[in-house]
């Protein structure tokens, strides 16, 4: 039987009306917005702040991801920020006093071609140099760790090995949101739901307020954490972002006895699978090719994903799809996020996390809070500035991002 889920705390958070003004306003009440507000309050003493959420708390990508957490990225800049995030994940359940079921069950990234093998081994080497626990597994070792994987060489894309990060894993995504939300509330942050931003008030090039469907809110600083809708907000504020929003789908099966002990990702055949604490198989698909804000994707993408899943895990052929859904991912050309200042004074942006924002949540919050509070980026997010698209100092993580786009 799967482990019992922990009980929720009796009290979670208030549901306040917006005040006339705040020291800072965070737009977007998902994981990144909540984490940013938490670190603003905790690390920088900014407690007169609000999170504005147009829908309900953590109802966007935070509710729609496959909860995978890992830090095995290729480049120094990415390894630094994602590894910092992983270290925060390790201490956050205690710090937030909320067991959000962070399970370090390891993540495998399969290699199916010689090119994959070379790229993966290179990444393992790079990871080790950056202090990231990564190792290379041959097919036998893959099978030992995940016995339900088909490692026969008679399939179209046989498993030729895998990178493995033992400290990686999954967490319960809504519990993460609730953990941050509860602490934010405790520290005095106003979490305002059903509050949609409709525009910004500017004094010259400086932002001074946020227009919402619940009135105008004055603020000294604005932090955008709206993932797929970042471009829409940036347009309201009068600048452009180099991101494209795409539908990304995932699905779950009905509940099963524990069969899948780790997390398996395959960039090549395009599926990633874990088994959630309750027992459902959680699988992610690829992005739809076209831009879309519809929070739904195409059936053929799921069909492709299922074909890949059943070839890798023949046992899944008898599982049933229980539920499918889509989120809106904000992709950049180098598959790396944008965290930093914007052309508008006192307005900051955290976006472009694309298909892998969940794992970055704590580090996004920490570095973005630093950027908002001090007006300058943290060492960790300095390389992820918007300016890199002008300087050409891109951080190409398409190989490690695991979802092609």
């Amino acid at each position: 039987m799967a482990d019992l889920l922990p009980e929720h705390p009796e009290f979670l958070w208030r549901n306040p009306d917006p005040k006339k003004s705040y020291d800072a306003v965070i737009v977007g009440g998902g994981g990144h917005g909540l984490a940013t507000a938490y670190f603003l309050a905790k690390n920088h003493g900014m407690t007169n702040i609000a999170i504005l959420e147009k829908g309900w708390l953590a109802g966007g990508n935070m509710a729609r991801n496959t909860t995978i957490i890992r830090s095995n990225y290729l480049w120094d800049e990415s390894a630094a920020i994602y590894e910092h995030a992983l270290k925060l994940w390790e201490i956050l359940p205690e710090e937030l006093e909320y067991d959000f079921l962070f399970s370090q069950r390891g993540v495998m990234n399969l290699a199916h071609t010689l090119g994959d093998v070379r790229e993966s081994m290179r990444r393992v080497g790079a990871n080790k140099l950056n202090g990231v626990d990564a190792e290379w597994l041959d097919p036998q070792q893959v099978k030992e760790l995940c016995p339900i994987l088909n490692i026969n060489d008679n399939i179209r894309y046989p498993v030729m090995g895998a990178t493995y990060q033992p400290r990686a894993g999954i967490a319960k995504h809504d519990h993460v949101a609730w953990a941050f939300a509860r602490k934010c509330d405790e520290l005095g942050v106003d979490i305002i739901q059903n509050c949609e931003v409709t525009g910004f008030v500017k004094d010259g090039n400086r932002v001074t307020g946020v227009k919402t469907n619940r009135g105008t809110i004055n603020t000294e600083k604005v932090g955008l954490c709206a993932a797929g809708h970042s471009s829409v907000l940036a347009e309201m504020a009068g600048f452009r972002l180099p991101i494209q929003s795409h539908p990304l789908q995932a699905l779950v099966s009905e509940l099963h006895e524990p069969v899948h002990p780790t997390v398996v990702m395959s960039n090549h055949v395009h599926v990633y699978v874990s088994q959630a604490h309750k027992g459902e198989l959680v699988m992610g698909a690829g992005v739809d090719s076209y831009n879309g804000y519809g929070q739904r994707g195409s059936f053929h993408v799921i069909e492709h994903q299922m074909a890949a899943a059943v070839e890798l895990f023949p046992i899944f052929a008898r599982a049933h799809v229980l539920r499918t859904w889509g989120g809106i991912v904000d992709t950049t050309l180098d598959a790396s996020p944008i965290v930093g200042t914007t052309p508008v004074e006192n307005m900051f942006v955290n976006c472009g996390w694309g298909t892998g924002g969940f794992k970055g949540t704590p580090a996004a919050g920490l570095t973005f809070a630093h950027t908002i509070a001090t007006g300058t980026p943290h060492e960790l997010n300095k390389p992820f500035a918007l300016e890199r698209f002008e300087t050409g100092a891109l951080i190409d993580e398409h190989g490690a991002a695991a979802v092609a786009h």
Partner: protein
Amino acid sequence: MLLISCPNCGSRDETEFHYGGQAHVAYPENPNELNDREWAEFLFYRDNTKGAFAERWLHSTGCRQWFNMLRDTVTYDIQAVYPMGAARPDKSAPAPESGTASTAPDSTTTGTAAPSIAATSTATSTAPASATAPEGATK
């Protein structure tokens, strides 16, 4: 799954097509004169419109021709299909002249063989339920 009306082949499944991103992005006339900011705009910045979006599509499994499409990125409704090189058929603007896909600089056509097609043909109004080209698609 989108049902896309190819100007040459008629209504086909989305899986036969390849997405080409935002339409009407011209290559800079004098690339050497661009500053870093302008070059970044051309290389990395594309509109990410929520609503009606003009984009390029290639019927890669079919006639291998590019065309433009006006599609709503929220409802995914296809509002217009029109040739490469033709102006975006805005609701207020008059429908552009029929164009030939082959004269567009980024068309894959080798000659001037592409048929002229109605610039504002929409997926629903001109796509018959048949597998063959819509009436008037070729002349």
